[in-house]
């Protein structure tokens, strides 16, 4: 049982950390990442491999803007709706659907970006895992399972579906190793997590 909690914490924190990487880089982010360079958690040490020094932040900012913001051609738009065809979604636009996901969890978006921005979707996964942990703490195993299911469903219908194509675009266009690296690990982490979730849901005994 105790093995479960730290594992979930790690998952949660990983999503959160990745989410932070997709905001415009600032000194706080550099410091946080630098602090994790020697972490025993594999993901942390991998992501932080190419974190520059604080005085090199400009190159990061430039790369970030070119990739994700503009003002001219956005090289790797970090929004799900850009990559998702709506054909499969019979009634709703993917943007509306993702908003509904958040609404159902009583979350209001305060980030001034589209609801399917990668930072938002990653943080949402973090949130769902924390809710799952809360449920376990409260001995609400039905609730915890439900949150696990939501995590799996969210990856399958949103984040997990478009990150591979997004990652491809970043790898092709990123000038800094930092973003190349972060995005590559975002993709592999999500892929791994998605598979692991499927397994856990398929074999309920292994849930907790």
């Amino acid at each position, binding site marked *: 049982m*105790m093995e479960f909690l730290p594992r979930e914490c790690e998952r949660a924190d990983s999503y959160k950390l990745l989410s932070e990487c997709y905001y415009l880089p600032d000194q706080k982010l550099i410091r946080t990442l630098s602090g994790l360079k020697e972490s025993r958690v594999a993901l942390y040490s991998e992501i932080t491999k190419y974190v520059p020094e604080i005085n090199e932040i400009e190159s990061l900012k430039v790369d970030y803007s070119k990739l994700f913001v503009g003002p001219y051609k956005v090289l790797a738009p970090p929004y799900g709706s850009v990559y998702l065809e709506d054909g499969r979604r019979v009634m709703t636009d993917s*943007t509306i659907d993702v908003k509904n996901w958040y609404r159902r969890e009583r979350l209001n978006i305060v980030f001034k970006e589209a609801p399917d921005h990668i930072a938002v979707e990653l943080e949402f996964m973090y949130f769902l895992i924390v809710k799952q942990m809360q449920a376990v703490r409260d001995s609400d195993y039905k609730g915890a399972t439900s949150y696990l299911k939501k995590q799996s469903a969210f990856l399958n219908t949103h984040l997990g579906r478009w990150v591979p194509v997004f990652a491809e675009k970043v790898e092709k266009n990123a000038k800094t190793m930092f973003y190349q690296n972060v995005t590559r690990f975002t993709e592999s982490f999500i892929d791994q997590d998605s598979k692991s979730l499927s397994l856990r849901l398929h074999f309920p005994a292994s849930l907790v």
Partner: protein
Amino acid sequence: MKKLQGSSPQGQNELKKKITRRGLLKLSAWGVAALSMAKVAEGVSVAEKSLTAKRKRLAMVIDLQRCMGCGACIITCKNENNVQDGFTWADKISKTVGKFPNVRYEYLPTLCNHCEKAPCVEVCPTGAMHKGDGDITMHNPKVCIGCKTCIAACPYGVISFNKKKPYKFWKSDEPLIKGATSSPREVVQKVKATAIPYYNPDREATLAGAGTRYKGIVEKCTLCDHRVKNGKLPYCVQRCPAKARIFGDLNAPNSAVNRILGKYRSFRLKEHLGTKPKVYYVRSLNPGTYQGTRGSV
């Protein structure tokens, strides 16, 4: 890594007891977040709390003299709750009685009576139909199995069953004039709505987060619990142009409903069945006068 005993319920409680500060520090040895025992107050608003705390009995009084039979209640309820074509949550009973020219028209607005002794709740096998906060007869789509026993039990006919996928009209891809008009599905997509173009997301606040219904479940009036819990009147009450619908708490001695029910004799539908309905009717659709007379032999 020390394994704490058991995943049994007792084991869990043990677990909880044993997460001490020292235990926390041990966890953090794995480079893991500190676990705090902070409790997050979950999803219970101030308004909601007060609905449960003082045990309200929410009811509605319909003043038939103010009612003009206009049907705005029926239409606006559908609007608020995304009720599909062919279903109503608020409805009416009307008929013309008498022989020309001694004719009158009878009109009675109807809705779920949110009975205190609700037959639909009593028969529901899964608890989908249940009494919720404020003594609203509430439905939980998540556990509804669509057995329709509630429909059979309800003497008022206010529950509808989704035999087919709802909102059928809006699923069509056929334009009227090719290239020049759109199709129902195209309109919904163009305006980025869910199911219907004028979809109201407010309905998602309760009803298990579902703003629309789906095949295989029942549906009915929830007294706009999503509005009530936010301190707003049920939509039919707010939108009646004549203020013919009055809402309030039967447990609050000076509420509007109690003031009116104290002043006027009222009736409820099928009271003799013992369902204890909470929709009351007062006064008369036509309060008109007639010429005084003693009649004749």
